[in-house]
């Protein structure tokens, strides 16, 4: 069985169209984020209180929201998907406000008290998260640093193994994937939590991984056919690796989709992020990374250093 037999699509022809489509999606996302007043940061980053409770009977989100009374207007009430249909898991999130008068402990107690006194059903507390403002700021800073540092590390490695324009292409494609993922997280109302950040960083690694496979093939083909123009080599390489790109993405998608369906509520945000990331990662590998590399290579003629270094390594091996 084979999906692509001697695939020969002209991907490079479509590079400008692809770039425009991506830019439109990203701008639409930026507009959405702007209209909503910023990225949907979870309490990991804003600080605040999350209380998770399990009712022993079906209870609606609205009933809980009403039970919370005045707190209800600030809090986010969300029903979690539970394996047991006779029970209802509810998450109540109360972000830290600018003029926070109460301690987080008091917030959590107030939430539980309000639900208890509203008498909408017996419940047990499942879990509780209280994150102070300093921790939130600290995590935000660390999250950004972790992303930038790992991208920088990858940039250096790709530049060392291939050439700088390829590295830039890989990094642009990765940024593209991170942005698109953030856009979809915003559209589908997922909050940025630590788990989601971990997923985004995985996307970064995954996207680069995908891109490197194509670049690796470009490097190999370049040695075999010196005279062939770069865009034709790149196009051929993308086609040659197309089967692998699609199958790998498909199987990883299967694994992550299982995580999304069966992995439980806590991993759902993570799995959703991965699903979006895998799709955009595959798209960017085929359309964005190589396109950027070609566009940049035209402007700056290849120094041959990367190629020569690779050859020297080959000879030694």
């Amino acid at each position, binding site marked *: *069985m084979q999906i692509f037999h001697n695939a020969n699509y002209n991907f490079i022809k479509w590079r400008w169209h692809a770039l425009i489509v991506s830019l439109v999606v990203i701008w639409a996302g930026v507009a959405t984020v702007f209209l909503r007043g910023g990225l949907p940061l979870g309490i990991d980053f804003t600080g605040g209180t999350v209380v*998770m409770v399990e009712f022993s009977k079906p209870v609606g989100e609205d009933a809980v929201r009403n039970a919370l009374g005045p707190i209800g207007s600030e809090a986010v009430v969300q029903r979690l998907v539970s*394996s047991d249909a006779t029970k209802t898991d509810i998450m109540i999130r109360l972000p830290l406000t600018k003029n926070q008068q109460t301690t*987080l*402990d008091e917030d959590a107690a107030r939430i539980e008290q309000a639900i208890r006194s509203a008498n909408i059903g017996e419940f*047990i*507390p499942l*879990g*509780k*998260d*209280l*994150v*102070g403002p*300093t*921790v939130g700021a*600290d*995590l935000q800073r*660390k*999250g950004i640093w*972790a992303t930038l*540092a*790992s991208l920088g*590390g990858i940039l250096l*490695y*790709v530049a060392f193994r291939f050439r700088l324009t390829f590295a830039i292409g890989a990094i642009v494609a990765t940024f593209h994937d991170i942005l698109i993922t953030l856009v979809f997280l915003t559209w589908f109302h997922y909050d940025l939590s*630590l*788990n989601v*950040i*971990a*997923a985004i960083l*995985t996307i*970064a*690694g995954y996207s*680069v*991984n995908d891109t*490197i*496979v194509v670049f*690796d*093939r470009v490097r*190999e083909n370049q040695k075999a056919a010196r005279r062939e123009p770069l865009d034709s080599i790149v196009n051929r390489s993308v086609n*040659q690796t197309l089967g*692998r790109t699609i*199958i*790998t993405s498909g*199987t*990883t998608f*299967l*694994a*992550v989709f*299982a*995580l999304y*369906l*069966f*992995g*439980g509520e*806590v*991993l759902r945000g*993570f*799995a959703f992020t*991965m699903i979006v990331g895998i799709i955009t990662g595959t798209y960017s590998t085929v359309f964005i990374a190589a396109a950027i590399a070609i566009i940049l290579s035209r402007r700056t003629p290849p120094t041959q250093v990367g190629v020569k270094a690779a050859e020297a390594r080959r000879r030694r091996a």
Partner: protein
Amino acid sequence: MYKNLKWKLLAIVVVTLLAVWSFTPPSTKIRLGLDLRGGVHFVLAVQTDDALRLETETASEQLRAGLKDKGITVTTTPALTEFTVTGVSSPDDQQFRALADTLVSTAYNRDANGSGTYVFSMKPNVIVQTRADAVTQAVQTIERRVNELGVSEPIVAPYGSAGDQIIVQLPGTRDVARAKQIISNTALLELKIVEAGPSPDEASLLQSHNGQVPPDMEVVQGMVSSKDPSKAYYLVRKVAAVTGRDLRNARPTVDEYNAPAVSFTLNSDGAVKFGRVTRENINRQLAIILDNQVQSAPRIDSEINAEGRISGTFTQQEVQDLSLVLRSGALPAKLNYLEQREVGPTLGADSIRAGITASLIGLAAVTLFMLLYYRLAGINAFVSIALNLVILLGFMSYLGAVMTLPGIAGFVLTIGMGVDSNVLIFERIREELAAKKSARQAIAASFDRVFITIVDTHVSSIIAAAFLFQFGTGPIRGFATTLFFGLLSNVFTSVFVSRTLFEFILSRRPAGATQLSV
């Protein structure tokens, strides 16, 4: 042709057995994180300023008292890291400097501001050291308290880059409020001689001292007695007769009214000090001060040496907890709770079940696809991916790494990476076979070529994982650890193991075979 085949197969078997041995039995070898087993996680900040302030107050008081012994009276005003001495007359100047040099010059720099005023500021390295010591001491104290609480496998460790944070994880703890109380109770016990009081307000307390607090005394709030908890003020001596450091033991008991109380025993140093002070102050009151609150102020009837009792309005539970924190010593500074995460046992169990179900279903779906698409080579892929997971579990158990929910996500991603390597190889084999190479040549050429790609992709992912681990916190670290070792073992399984399996199959067929189920 494949003469090392036996050794390669043996190596694979040995590695597999080592991995399995390292996580057997799984119930004890695989350590579950809080998110999977339930419990509570805190991040606390040590108010290291408290320690600095105490250090400065002690130094300034020491200097003032030393000068008083020599007949020199000065005023000291301590602040956070510096204290000012005023009122040094010029004839005393020489003597003052000499004494200051011997008493506080190791930790403080002295600046003369003219007209008998000196400013002593703490040396920068001493500030850093004092802060660090406060955190270390807090970690040790919390550890002792948590151990006495009887929590299994608690984690108490310095945390974060700021240098003043502590992480505390208590698996299986249900009574979070009590745990918090015990951890952050400063439990600073001081026994001080009462000079005046109890009085209902400060003004009447200071009447006999012309409304001024004498320099070697201080005002402390508290209760009139354990029977009368109305608010009262006491004027006490600044220097404590005995502090919590002089304690040998503390345990719950009852007082003469049969109310819960804490009895304590002093160590030998403490007993000598306490004996002297009580002997000299018979018929006066002794204030028992806990965290700057007078609990009671009993009259000293006779010399007391090693034993004492703290009465107050305690419940049975409070008395037990108070004995516990007194035994474990005082905290050097106040603690603030920055973060608190509670995971109930049901949520943890649900998460494990969901995580494992998802992983197994994912693995099954991927295997099914690989078998359909690559036929017999799909078995090859399944073996190398399953072995990858086994080795990863082995690594995690061997290193004592904690399995968390993001860690399970890391396992799922490892499946993805494993498939990717196999697909790369199989696709290449198909290409080589299409180029009319024999099966053996195709296998050799494909693995040689794809190895370079796999190294490149894995190294870049390992770089990402390493940075994640370095800069990440909590869940991100768990994920990074799993990903890191998953990638390492994947290079082994997808290249070495998979190739050996192919060679094993080919070794049983003629050298020129051109058919391969891939």
